[in-house]
């Protein structure tokens, strides 16, 4: 599927769009409706797992904010994805505590193993890799969060084993 086709498919996903529009409508009753842009983007990402351009256009229409401004906001904040993430999102903690305890080695292992860099998705779409600032699990440093699960006290070897578990599951 080309990107345009994918975008068309997204724009026509009526159910999600209806949900988003309903959320936007609620925010527009407030005294400062524009101030809810970030909240709306959070909602959109929750629905679509990233922020497709056609969806940003819809938001622009509904909130009467130029798409250019929305794009500016979406690109400013790290939390918003502009491309679809992998099936499993790997967030590697690059907080200081993890760094001091060897996060750099874990990152190298992930890069070597998955052959992708930060912000990229593996060709099979199984994993995407993103940096995380402190996950607050400093006692377990170094840590990686895959989806919502924290894996701690990692070594390069342990990291590879964990990846293999996810790969195995995906094959089933």
């Amino acid at each position, binding site marked *: 599927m080309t990107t345009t086709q994918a975008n068309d498919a997204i724009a026509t996903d009526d159910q999600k769009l209806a949900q988003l529009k309903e959320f936007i409508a609620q925010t527009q009753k407030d005294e*400062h409706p*524009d*101030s*809810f*842009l*970030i*909240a709306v*983007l*959070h909602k959109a990402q929750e629905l679509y797992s990233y922020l497709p351009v056609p969806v940003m256009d819809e938001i622009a229409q509904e909130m009467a904010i130029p798409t250019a*401004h929305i794009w*500016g*906001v979406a690109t*400013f*904040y*790290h*939390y*918003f994805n502009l491309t679809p993430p992998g099936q499993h999102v790997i967030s590697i903690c*690059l*907080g*200081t*505590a*993890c*760094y*001091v*305890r060897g996060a750099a080695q874990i990152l190298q292992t992930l890069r070597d193993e998955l052959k992708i860099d930060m912000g990229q998705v593996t060709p099979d779409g199984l994993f995407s890799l993103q940096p*995380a*600032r*402190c*996950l*607050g699990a*400093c*006692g377990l*440093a170094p840590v990686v969060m895959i989806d919502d699960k924290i894996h701690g006290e990692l070594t*390069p070897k342990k990291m590879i084993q964990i990846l293999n578990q996810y790969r195995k599951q995906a094959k089933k």
Partner: protein
Amino acid sequence: MTKERELAVATTYRIIVCDGTTCINRGSRNLISRLREQLERHGLADRSTISLSGCLGMCDKGPILVVNPGYTIYGNVTEADIPEIVEEHLLHNRPVARLAIQEDHLYNRFFRVFGDAKFFGKQMRITLRNCGIIDPENIDNYLSLRGYEALARVLTDMTPESVVAEVEASGLRGRGGAGFPTGMKWKFTAAQKATPKYVICNADEGDPGAFMDRSAIEGDPHTVVEGMAIGGYAVGASKGIVYIRAEYPLAIKRITKAIEDARAHGLLGENILGSSFSFDIEIRLGAGAFVCGEETALIHSIEGTRGMPRPRPPYPSVQGLFGLPTVINNVETWANIPVIILDGAKWFQTVGTETSKGTKVFALAGKVVNTGLIEVPMGTSLREIIYDVGGGIPGGKKFKAVQTGGPSGGCLPEQYLDTPIDYESLAKAGSIMGSGGMIVIDEDSCMVDIAKFFLEFTQNESCGKCTPCREGTKRMLEILTRITEGKGRAGDIEKLERLGNMIKKASLCGLGQSAPNPVLSTIKNFREEYEEHIHQGRCRARVCTNLVTYQITEKCVGCGACRKVCPVVAISGTAKKQHVIDQDKCVKCGMCFNTCKFDAIVKV
């Protein structure tokens, strides 16, 4: 059964009556029968024990009673006081202040539950007083430990001016890092005529290696809600906003529930507790931008735009959110407010140092035995924190530095270990208090690499608005990168210093003004490591890969494992004989080092 009653029934009481000669002479034994009678009357007899003690030593105040839970010591007790003590203290969990000799300071509570384990010994929990004790999702738990009592007190007994005056008198300073006096901030906003006014709780904790705010909200969200409501009353704001990181789902859930429960109990909303004061709180999520911890950037983010700072003045206390007067305080600052109201500014002033009052929460992490969240009185030394609370360095390694203040702070070596924790002393030593990240670094870390790590972070997080920060941090990072790659040049250290000082002076906001700190402080305290990297091509911690060579020692048994994993075929040797690494071919990937089971490969 009322909630108070339920709680009272579930608790076991122990009342100690002093049975020393003076107390007996002053009538202590008459108290016992009266106590029994009152306990019977309220149906608490099977859950209570009355014991006699030897002389407690406070003879001039006899007869003495000690009531647990509560650890409250009552003096000059007469028979007529007994019904009040039983009803107020035991049934309603409200110690009778007029008879109490030792006040029930809120922070003491922690030790009653967890005792005086070494980890807690040097700690004093004011903002974390309820963390680990109450169920954070249960408002009744919070209420039973004098929760919202401070709010009730300000609404009934205090004018907004007197609340501001009390906070100002307490000497509380902003816990977000800069240490601006909180009372003064409130005063500025209270003096403004424009309405509506806002109070904001900054929970956008972006410092890598810090999790104080997250844990505080997860452990005791109501204290933040209560603090904000008191702040709202003091400055005349009707709306509060909690700006919290989207990366903290549990904290978001708990603060949301706390706000809903408070609303349901009439502690937020219209006419709180029957007063004319109306106040409500809403939540706004951050989206992962470190610079949004800066107050003007945070305001822009709440307004729904790119979170970039703007020049000050006007300060947010005059022109903040939507151009209206706004008080912005950090989570920890808000959590101090109820305690200051309940225990008083006078008491709060007794904790801490001359210029820094109260306690500070730190996220202690890195190369230290006990990693976790701690709260110590200001003035505690770094040594006490690292060795007494933190349990020292694991694995018999040598301490090298402690990093405070995250990417805005500095690294302090051993000679600064006796520095007391307060805003001024840390600044004098070349670091900052910051929001509370504290990372212990041992001999296995390279200081140039650490400086590079922090600068990579700030460079990446620089919003790009002002040139010194955007371009300057980039250039500094380039220089640091080449030093760690063994390509450092003579004069690089001086160039870093010059650039760093320039960025500090010329940047618009706190992010840029403090970004060079990790580099400047490591140059100041570990200059020899920079020099070794540049002039000798040596990294003493063996971290910078380009400056490390791998060698095989005589421990080698010739298993060939390293030879097989080497990606560039740099290792040669025959079976059962010591192997060698061809240094010209070696790409220093470290695969052989990780593979060897005999510790025969060393980094030099």
